[in-house]
């Protein structure tokens, strides 16, 4: 099986300040990698590099065999993600946001609306379909951001702390949806501080930084784990 993600010794530094120590990853389709580590260990930086939002100082990454290049339409078709708050249109409802994103990927207007409705249902946001983004609670905003990331077609999903601001029930929704996505053969890379999410989703773990972070439960029930300062997974 070819690798969905293959990254070799990715490193990013600015003026000799290392944002990401050399890190290597190799993931097959249908795998889920949890990236853990303390604050500032480089989790988000790694995700941004994989999503093409930042360029590594050294090292290289390939996703589905092609170099990471956010300017390439083919790359953008393969990789989706939620890193930081997504931009929203203040004049569109949640349903319209999702429909517009779906339509931008080739769905007809009717298909896009159906897709949006289905996604709202999956994330249990249907009751909020007519709300505007500013009318959401922080947890609802987080679910909506995740819904925006998966309403479009993709093969690799990059998520930065998807558990943020979610209560246990909403975290359960995230786990269910991500399990469905992984079962459909998609690859998920997510940074997290949540042991619950990690244990429920991750097939592999990459721990960044050498200070332990939340490493205590890293190897609990996962099939593979790596602990590194010069990380490899």
């Amino acid at each position, binding site marked *: 099986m070819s690798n969905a993600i293959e990254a070799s010794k990715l490193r990013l530094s600015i*003026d000799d300040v290392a944002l990401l120590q050399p890190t290597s990853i190799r993931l097959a389709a249908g795998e889920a990698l949890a990236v853990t580590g303390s604050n500032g260990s480089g989790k988000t930086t790694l995700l941004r590099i994989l999503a093409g*939002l930042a360029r590594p100082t050294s090292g290289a990454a390939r996703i589905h065999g092609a170099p990471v290049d956010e*300017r390439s339409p083919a790359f*953008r078709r393969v990789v989706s993600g939620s890193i930081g708050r*997504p931009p929203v249109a203040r004049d569109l409802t949640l349903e319209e946001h999702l429909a*517009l994103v779906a339509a*931008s*990927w*080739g769905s007809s207007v009717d298909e896009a609306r159906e897709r949006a409705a289905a996604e709202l249902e999956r994330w249990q946001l249907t009751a909020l379909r007519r709300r505007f983004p500013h009318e959401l609670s922080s947890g609802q905003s987080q679910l909506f951001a995740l819904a925006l990331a998966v309403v479009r077609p993709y093969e690799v999903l990059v998520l930065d702390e998807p558990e943020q601001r979610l209560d246990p029930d909403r975290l359960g929704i995230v786990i269910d949806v991500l399990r469905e996505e992984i079962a459909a053969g998609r690859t998920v890379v997510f940074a997290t501080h949540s042991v619950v999410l990690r244990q429920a989703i991750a097939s592999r773990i990459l721990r960044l930084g050498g200070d332990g972070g939340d490493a205590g439960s890293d190897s609990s029930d996962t099939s593979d784990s790596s602990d590194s300062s010069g990380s490899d997974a």
Partner: protein
Amino acid sequence: MSRETARSLRAVRTIRRARAEGSSRGDVVYAVYAGVMVAAIVGVPIVRAVVLYLAEPAASAVLVDVGPTVSGTVFALACAAFVALGGVRGPALLSPFLIFAVAGGGHPRRRTLLGPVVRSVLALAVAGAGIALLPALVVAGVGDATVGGALAFAGAGALVGVVCGGCWLLGQRATAAVRAWIVVGVLATWVVWVAVPGSSAVLPWGWFASLFPAGGLAAGAALGWGALAGLGVLAAAAIAVAPLLLDGLRGPVLLSQAQRWQTAGTLAFTGDLAMAMGEFRAVPRRGRGLAAIGGGGGLALMFARRDLVGSLRTPARFALACAGCLGFGLLITVAVGASGPGVWIAACAAAIAGFLALGVWSDGFRHVAEVAAAPPLYGVSTLRLLGLHAALPVVGGVVFSGVGVGVGGMVLGGVPGGGGGGVGVGVGVGGGVGIGVGVVWPALAAAVLCVMLLVLVRVYDSAKGPLPLALMAPVPTPAGDASALVVAAWQADAVILSGVVVGVTVASFAGGVVGGVLVAVGLGAVVAWLARRRVLAG
């Protein structure tokens, strides 16, 4: 892919139109109505006044004399400015969400971002044609040119607009370093054009200048249609490379520009122009290895060092400040050497250049304004803190404006009516300029004093609070509600004050250096009192 892209974009438009806010037919009609009314009530009288003024014999003679030089210079500076602007706000701009949803999608950016770029380039072409047509019609009206020549110049203006659009997109695509090199390159070719006779034939600035429909360069007649064809080729090249540039745009850059523009628009709509401008201020990414705090010498040196190193951490801004102060000094030299209205025109241009340039070195004042509104942070008073932060703008302003005065003296020295190198650098409207050696020292004194005054204006401006609600009250006049003018005056008060203090100071130097110094000291006392009152009130 192309058909699928078109289908996707149609679907996106359909969903957007289902949400009426911001794009209903009524909104569009109202915008057109408002635009026409503003043009009719405000634009037409201003344009008419300018045309009538330029049609006066003295002014039209100057226009014919300097028109080609100014045309080429404006073209070159506009290209450089648009390249620089592209790094802050490029033509390929949608709302942040549409950047995320559409430009971040799987379709080529040459398609998804084509619309806003086409609109921007068209607007620039129309603006270019309109701006070129104005002086061209004036010289045609006074009999110095044919209507055909005027129309050809307007057409060239449209092509210049397209080229500027290409530069804008290029600036958005390029990295900061490449952008800086392009700007330097453009400015270098402009210097070559000014300094090297005969370079007009090979430089686009010369092509455009040669098409000015009256007076002009000796080479102008020879260039003729070839110059127009050259500009056409340049414009066609800009259009041809646009798809490649669009495909090369990076998503994070697009998104950050869109978010910044949206935030600035919101702030500007609420009347907070200062905050809106702050959105476009570069943030430091370099120079963290430079020690901002270090050495000895007490608080004064510590703050001066801190401000200098902080400014060096945004090198492009620092360079702009230096260049702006240099231009300020040059314009002050021109103003001191001018007579009649030329004094005020050059002085006001200098005031704007100096005010903007010193804004770069006024981050310390802005910081003090923020600190003053919070629980005590520093162990010195607000006024003393302002004084500590004044070292960099005063010293930097004096040094670089002094260099500018020197350059002005060399470039314009002893050339009545201007003229240097291959093309004329004449400046002066209704009076003319004769820069002699004797002007340099008064100009230097005026520049130093004006820097001090502008620093005080910067302090005054930094302590400006939010728009007072009282200014939002209607101001009924026979022509309608004039409250917008009041608000505009409040927004621009520091710029207006800069123009007044610099203009009065420079004008007073006509009566002798001593008189000029006394006037400047008096003005300084007034502005200092205004600034102190505003700071303490905040």
